[in-house]
């Protein structure tokens, strides 16, 4: 056993905004010498797709900053309009790009380069009849017991 610090993360969410915390924390931890694993379960599995088509929804999310002060006057129900989700997602993506924030795909690549172990929850894959050929290469498929093998000896455990 090494004396390297360890970080274990469970990623459960599959939206654009929630894709960031696990990949930012994992890549940074790896950069400062942590041995790191991320266990992707339920909607978190979207973050392992080759074709990342992640979206962010203003619906039911009063904390989301909206452009042009729309959060002040735009009716909540209006955020349910068709096309709103796509529009907000592409606006968010272009804002991130203009501010020099990495894309999710880029952060995920940095994680893989730094040997962050990515584990897909086999149960979720089966549950949603997901096609493993849609997922990126070099990931493991396992269950809760495998997670605990690493999490049990980790210094930091996060549920995101």
């Amino acid at each position, binding site marked *: 056993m090494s004396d390297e610090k360890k970080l274990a993360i469970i990623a459960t969410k599959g939206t654009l905004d929630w894709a960031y915390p696990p990949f930012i924390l994992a890549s940074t931890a790896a950069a400062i010498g942590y041995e790191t694993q991320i266990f992707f379960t339920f909607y978190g599995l979207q973050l392992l797709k080759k074709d990342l088509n992640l979206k962010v929804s203003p619906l039911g999310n009063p904390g989301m900053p909206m452009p042009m002060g729309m959060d002040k006057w735009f009716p909540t129900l209006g955020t349910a309009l068709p096309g709103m989700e796509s529009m907000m997602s592409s606006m968010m993506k272009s804002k991130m790009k203009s501010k020099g924030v*990495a894309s999710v795909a880029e952060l995920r690549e940095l994680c893989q380069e730094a040997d962050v172990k990515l584990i897909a929850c086999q149960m979720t894959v089966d549950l949603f009849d997901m096609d493993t050929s849609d997922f990126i290469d070099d990931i493991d498929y396992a269950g809760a017991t495998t997670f605990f093998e690493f999490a049990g000896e980790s210094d930091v455990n996060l549920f995101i």
Partner: protein
Amino acid sequence: MSEYTEKFDATGLNCPLPILRSKKVLTKMNSGDVLYVISTDSGSVKDFDAFCKQTGNELLESSEAEGKYHYYIKKA
């Protein structure tokens, strides 16, 4: 301060990219080499300090001039 082995310009990059990319450059350098990093991310001041404390690399200098942040890191 002006002596350095490698220079990395992280202008325009936001957290955590300045750290991650700098780390990548450092990996290819030799012990004792100095990496000079330029960043425009104000959060990177505390981050480079924390990065060096946790990795054992030495932060020789951290300064700000005209909206840019300059770091000199000596590889452990």
